[in-house]
């Protein structure tokens, strides 16, 4: 039972009132419409009006909340009405909005809580023996790899075809305190860069904090340096894409094999002077060299006066027993309900297998609700091999070829996978597209090779990265 506002409380109102704004009519209408039950459709209109200053959207909100005062209902509406906003209170409803809102200029602080870092997963499917297949090119473009692992279901031992490849995965070198100008020296360029594929990457440097350098097999030397170093170096570069409004990081690219970089050119002298005298940069480098045929001096003898050591990749084998494997169909990238799993599901499953996550949970279990994607089968054994080191793409291509050959003879397995992790701190990911760390610096790819030599390729990158090629 309510009665009219008594005089006393009218006075209260006047006291408590903020600045009067007169937009009453439009607001009343909007509220009226909302009451007619077509709430959701009006929300956009109301919101745009709301931007001009009136309180329409919120009025509708109030209508609904007063309508069903139960919490979930209001939550659901809140989640839908501003799918760009509010995930902050809508814990239950957010799962539905699959892709978090894209970053905008002015995100209210509270809504940042519900935003996850941007990331990309590119899935391709094709045939390994197709003339125009680009799978090998994708491998070649991803220059720096720290870990390669392959998983073969229905296999307990290292297959014969792979033995020689695994043994010949190639050694790499670690040179301590190598001045960068030695990589620019013409002796080095002529002996290694021009005669094969030379890979170099700084070791134990962090791309978001320190200076980093990388030498790509196409002869480009990439220096990713902070502002101070850039100013001291005096070489031309460009601001990093991911360093924000206030540029704190610059990328300098020097083409060592270009025609403008012959020994007496001005450019060469300038670079040499900058790296030798102006700001002598020194790093620990990981080096690897791949050449076809032509014998030459080796990195070991060339850098003998520096602290150099040759390292072998670490190889581990393991056999997994009674592994739940998802069923895949090579022509169904999206998967089919009840028939095969999609590529994202496989990607997550593979992560679970490599991290030794238990796969047999129930949706109701307390600890973890992760389970193997449906449909799946249990394979009796699966062979997992992991190689860690500084692994060059040429060897990965060889390995990929051999894995294709594995299906040359009839096998029980329907597919196998090859996973390659990149360095989180390398200045490039694929080709020369800039790479940053942000929160994880992930850049990795995974091949699924089917028995009929169809393949799936999944390439994943984190926030500070371009779309893979």
């Amino acid at each position, binding site marked *: 039972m309510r009665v009219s506002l008594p005089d006393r409380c009218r006075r209260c109102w006047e006291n408590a009132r903020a600045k009067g704004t007169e937009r009453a009519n439009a607001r009343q209408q909007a509220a009226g419409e909302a009451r007619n039950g077509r709430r959701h459709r009006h929300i956009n209109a109301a919101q745009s009006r709301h931007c001009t200053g009136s309180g329409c959207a919120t009025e509708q909100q109030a209508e609904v909340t007063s309508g069903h005062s139960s919490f979930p209902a209001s939550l659901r509406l809140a989640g839908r009405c501003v799918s760009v906003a509010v995930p902050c209170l809508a814990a239950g409803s957010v799962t539905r909005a699959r892709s978090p809102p894209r970053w905008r200029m002015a*995100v209210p*602080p509270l809504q*940042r809580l519900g935003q996850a870092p941007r990331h990309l997963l590119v899935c391709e499917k094709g045939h390994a023996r197709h003339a125009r297949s680009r799978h090998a090119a994708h491998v070649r473009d991803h220059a720096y790899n720290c870990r390669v692992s392959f998983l073969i279901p229905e296999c307990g031992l290292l297959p014969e075809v792979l033995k020689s490849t695994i043994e010949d995965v190639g050694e790499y070198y670690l040179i301590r305190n190598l001045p960068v100008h030695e990589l620019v020296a013409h002796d080095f360029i002529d002996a290694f860069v021009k005669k094969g594929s030379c890979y170099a990457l700084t070791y*134990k440097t962090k791309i978001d904090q*320190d200076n980093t350098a990388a030498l790509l097999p196409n002869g480009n030397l990439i220096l990713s340096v902070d502002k101070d170093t850039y100013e001291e170096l005096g070489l031309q570069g460009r601001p990093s894409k991911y360093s924000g*409004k*206030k540029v704190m*990081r610059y990328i300098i690219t020097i083409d060592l094999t270009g025609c403008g970089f012959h020994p007496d050119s001005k450019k060469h002298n300038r670079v040499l002077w900058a790296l030798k005298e102006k700001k002598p940069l020194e790093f*620990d480098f990981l080096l690897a060299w791949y050449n076809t045929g032509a014998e030459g001096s080796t990195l070991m003898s060339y850098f003998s006066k520096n602290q150099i050591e040759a390292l072998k990749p670490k190889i581990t084998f393991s056999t997994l027993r009674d592994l739940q494997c998802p069923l895949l169909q090579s022509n169904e990238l999206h998967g089919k309900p009840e028939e095969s799993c999609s590529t994202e599901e496989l990607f997550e499953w593979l992560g679970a297998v490599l991290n030794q996550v238990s796969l047999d949970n129930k949706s109701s279990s307390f600890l973890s609700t992760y389970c193997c994607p449906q449909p799946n089968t249990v394979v009796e054994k699966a062979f997992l091999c992991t190689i860690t080191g500084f692994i060059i793409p040429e060897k990965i291509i060889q390995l990929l070829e051999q894995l294709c050959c594995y299906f040359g003879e009839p096998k029980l397995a329907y597919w196998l996978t090859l996973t390659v992790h990149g360095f989180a701190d390398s200045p490039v990911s694929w080709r020369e597209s800039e790479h940053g760390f942000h*929160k994880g610096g992930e850049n990795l790819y995974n091949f699924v090779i089917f028995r009929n030599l169809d393949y799936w390729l999944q390439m994943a990158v984190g926030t500070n990265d371009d779309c893979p090629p």
Partner: protein
Amino acid sequence: MAGFSDLNIPQGPDKKSMQGLLETAAHLGYSAVALNHVIDFKEKKQEIIKPVSPSELFPSLPVVQGTSKRIKVLTRLTLVISDPSHCNLLRSTSPNIRLYDIIAVFPKTEKLFHIACTTLDVDLVCINVTEKLPFYFRRPPVNVAIDRGIYFELLYTPAIKDSTMRRYTISNAISLMQICKGKNIVVSSAAERPLELRGPYDVANLGLLFGLSEGEAKAAVSTNCRAAMLHGETRKSACGIVYTLKKPRKVEEEETLPACKKAKTQA
């Protein structure tokens, strides 16, 4: 030098626990820390002592994890001022004050906050995070402070220790963000024990709770700290225009950039 830094490691009498803190900081990936010497004028007259040189305290500094460099240790002086007369100390050219790398003030009243932001020659202004704000932030002094290159420091250790302080930390931080729009913020620890320190990425994520954007939050533990250090350096080196290197090889002169943006020459 855009590595992560923690500008507030309270300097205690116990050398061993300090060593432990430094080791944890290095292990977590901080490439620079500042040892904080606090002077509270409320408690008896305290003398400003000469900063203890870190190299004396710690003969071997720990190596920053994942790199081959050693952690860098700076000295910092924090003055808790509750009365305008306390500011005179900063104005007078006390020789001992000049020896510190970073100078911070902790104003207790609105008036002192105003003075600290607008006139005092300091690098950091501490924000109270352990109790309800005794005053509202006003835009003019904050804007002046941002123009002068002075940074505001938020601490996160109180938020770990206690639920009530956590509320005040977040709420005061958000109030500040509404005024300064996320600019010129430094987040540091003031951790007394190794288990109160948090990794730089964790702290950057915490910045999101304080109302910073992702970029600003990361800057609050890296580039802003660097800027504050450089701001402190300008006090020692003739406004940062001329900088003398220790090696008698050469004196580097650089263009007259604004002092706070000055690139630092490594000795």
